[in-house]
């Protein structure tokens, strides 16, 4: 897989940035950021469908990062810097994207990688079908989102890229996860 590169290169290569946030994400912050994103995107004269795709992908990505950090607290594991980072922008190709970066446990990498590889290999109709099957099968289960979040993202974007990066030795035992969803 091609390297997605550093945040710096994402920012430099691309056209317009609507929002950048780094640090611990909370629901209150997410709500404020979404509100600001709504203003920014709507000011960009985008159609409603694309606008809503951007908001929902952003919320899904942000809540994924939040779940990683709350998992850490619940498990009483050694606390790590979650290094949550999220950027929403518009590239030079005029396509909107949501980029994120966060630290996660290596133990969770396989599961996430399998899910992402599955989703990337599917056409849109298949993703929609998998989404509905997962929503139905998880009936009465009260797990967070019933595992359909990644299908939700895939339904709403054109391209998903990701990488795991363990080159940073300060996050021993963990991995840096970078993710980019490109919306039409």
């Amino acid at each position, binding site marked *: 897989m091609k390297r997605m590169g550093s945040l710096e290169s994402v920012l430099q290569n691309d056209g317009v940035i609507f929002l950048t946030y780094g640090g611990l994400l909370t629901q209150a912050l997410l709500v404020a950021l*979404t*509100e600001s994103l709504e203003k920014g995107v709507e000011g960009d004269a985008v159609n409603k*469908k694309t606008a*809503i*795709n951007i908001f929902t992908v952003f919320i*899904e990505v942000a809540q994924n990062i*939040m779940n990683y950090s709350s998992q850490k607290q619940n498990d009483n594991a050694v606390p790590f810097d979650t290094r949550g980072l999220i950027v929403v922008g518009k590239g030079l190709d005029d396509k909107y994207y949501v980029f994120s970066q966060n630290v996660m446990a290596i133990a969770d990498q396989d599961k996430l990688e399998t899910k992402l590889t599955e989703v990337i290999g599917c056409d849109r109709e298949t993703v929609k079908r998998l989404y509905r099957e997962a929503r*139905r099968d998880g009936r009465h289960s009260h797990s967070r*989102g019933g595992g359909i979040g990644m299908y939700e993202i895939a339904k709403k974007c054109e391209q998903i890229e990701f990488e795991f990066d363990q080159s940073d030795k300060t996050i021993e035992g963990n991995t840096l996860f970078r993710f980019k969803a490109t919306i039409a």
Partner: protein
Amino acid sequence: MESLIIEETKYTPKISMDAASGVIEMSGKSYPENTFDFYAPVMKWLEDYFTTTNKIVINMEIIYFNSSSSKLFFDFFDLCDEKRDTHDIEINWIYDADNENAEEAGEDFIEDFEFLRINLVVKK
């Protein structure tokens, strides 16, 4: 039975469950952090209400929602589906004409619950 009213926030819909009329309304956005905790009173109210009445109208106008809310709405309709033989249940899924995402979400629910009466209602 008491009515249940939950005021709208920036990330949760206004919810009104009227015990006298049997009309349930939800309108706004839905992306709470702990979706199942947030909607627990709503699910409980509906379950209880089914024991006291046999006619319910549900008007839902959700602008956008996160995946756990999507799951929750599925469970909510599933609860209705379990009562469809004994209760008169009508669901109106309301959306703005230019909100294709909401329209598609409504169509999916119609396909998933083919025996429930779910109407797509376009707001002019």
